[in-house]
């Protein structure tokens, strides 16, 4: 750890108070059982989100509120952390998200209204960077990756490389920064995220019928699950993967999540379980009296909370049955 862990005393004290105000499972259940999106909104105005959702005039604008809430959390963490690098590391994911959105807008003509104003690089600057092909404000790995996307796309015209190249660069950067900072908890988070992405890629590649070579190209290194462990089962039925990962900590996730994915053809259950898996890992942060862990955990808790609110609102607006929403709701951190 870069600094004495008691330097986090103030930040953790504040997080402890904020954690107590996270929405719990009970409240999510009530929101899911609400009769309409308007009723959900009314419940939100009676919660921590009173001021932000109180201003919402059109229910379809809720995305703006969710992303400003996220911005607000990052601002808060930036002011209380004794170690600003931590927040920069956690924001990097959003830089890459914005990069992907902008590249896709440029190459695939998808309209880009999904920028998230949270990354280390302000969105305006990022738009300009992509427009002018000038990525010098980004960390080296991301800059090189962004340039590579440009080169590769001109040759191959394959939109998949955008995600692929950028994700590989992102996780290499995250792992290397976590190692440099010597925070094993953070590295553990990234390793698990890498494993989950690799599992997801594996099923996708399997579903699309692409072979081992393609999986090798998309595989993210540095995870706990090696390429040999996963790549071997690509041409075999799912059962062999379930058996092979039966002894790892991903056993239930694979058994329940991937089976459901293959049965129903949608990854939503898997994605829920994957998020819950990360939540379970980060929950340790709740018991740490000092150190960066509670900050990392709280940030994730809020990200999941916003995701749940989005799921419920989208579900209610589209009049999905309560059960369909409920099975996708992520476990709460508290």
């Amino acid at each position, binding site marked *: 750890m870069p600094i004495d862990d*008691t330097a986090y*005393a*103030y*930040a*953790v*004290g*504040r*997080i*402890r*108070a*904020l*954690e*107590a105000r996270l929405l719990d499972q009970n409240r999510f259940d009530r929101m899911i059982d609400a009769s309409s999106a308007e009723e959900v909104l009314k419940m939100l105005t009676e919660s921590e989100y009173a001021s932000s959702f109180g201003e919402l005039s059109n229910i379809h604008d809720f995305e703006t509120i969710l992303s400003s809430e996220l911005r607000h959390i990052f601002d808060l963490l930036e002011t*209380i952390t004794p170690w600003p690098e931590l927040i920069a590391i956690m924001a990097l994911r959003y830089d890459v998200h914005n990069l992907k959105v902008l590249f896709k807008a440029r190459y695939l003509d998808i309209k880009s209204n999904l920028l998230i104003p949270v990354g280390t690089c302000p969105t305006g600057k990022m738009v300009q960077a992509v427009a002018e092909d000038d990525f010098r404000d980004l960390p080296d790995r991301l800059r090189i990756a962004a340039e590579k996307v440009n080169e590769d796309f001109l040759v191959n015209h394959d939109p998949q490389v955008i995600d692929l190249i950028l994700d590989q660069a992102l996780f290499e950067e995250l792992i290397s920064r976590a190692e440099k900072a010597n925070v094993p908890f953070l590295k553990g988070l990234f390793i698990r995220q890498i494993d989950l992405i690799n599992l997801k890629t594996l099923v996708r590649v399997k579903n699309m019928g692409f072979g081992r070579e393609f999986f090798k190209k998309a595989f993210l290194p540095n995870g706990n699950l090696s390429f040999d462990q996963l790549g071997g089962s690509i041409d075999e039925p799912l059962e062999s993967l379930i058996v092979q990962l039966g002894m790892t900590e991903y056993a239930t996730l694979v058994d329940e999540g991937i089976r459901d994915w293959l049965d129903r053809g949608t990854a939503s259950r898997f994605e829920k379980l994957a998020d819950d898996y990360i939540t379970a890992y980060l929950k340790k942060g709740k018991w740490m*009296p*000092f150190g960066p862990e509670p900050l990392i955990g709280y940030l994730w808790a809020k990200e999941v909370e916003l995701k749940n609110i989005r799921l419920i609102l989208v579900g209610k607006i589209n009049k999905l049955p309560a059960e369909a929403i409920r099975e996708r709701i992520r476990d709460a951190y508290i």
Partner: protein
Amino acid sequence: MTGLEIALLGAALAVGLAGIGSAIGVGIVGQSAAGLVTEDPDKFGQTLLLQALPGTQGIYGLLTGFIIMQRVGIIGETLLELTVPEGYAFLMAAIPIALVGLLSAIYQGRVSASAVGLIAKRPEELGKGIVYAVMVETYAVLALLASIMLLFGIPV
């Protein structure tokens, strides 16, 4: 150094080290409490109680220092002419509270700061948080007891 100087070094260490420990301990709890009170100002009273706990080691150190000063005559009428071995006897008598005071106050501060996190979620459990912190206090009290017994046992 003369015997008297060595004895005074003992007093200085008792007051100084135990005081440093308390300052660090109280400081940690104070930061943690300020974080909680930023979000929840009603918890000020409860956190103040927790913050005070690691402060006792400093008081124990001061008490030990006073006893040394009083025994060698810094406080009082006649200054004793101590031999060097007698001086060392006072220095050694001060060591228990100096060392245990320093470290136990820091650790008690960490426990108290954790208890601040506890009352953030369960204010009704303040008592349990205090009990945890007071467990650390035991060892400071034992060290104080040892230092006092040693001091009064020195035949001068």
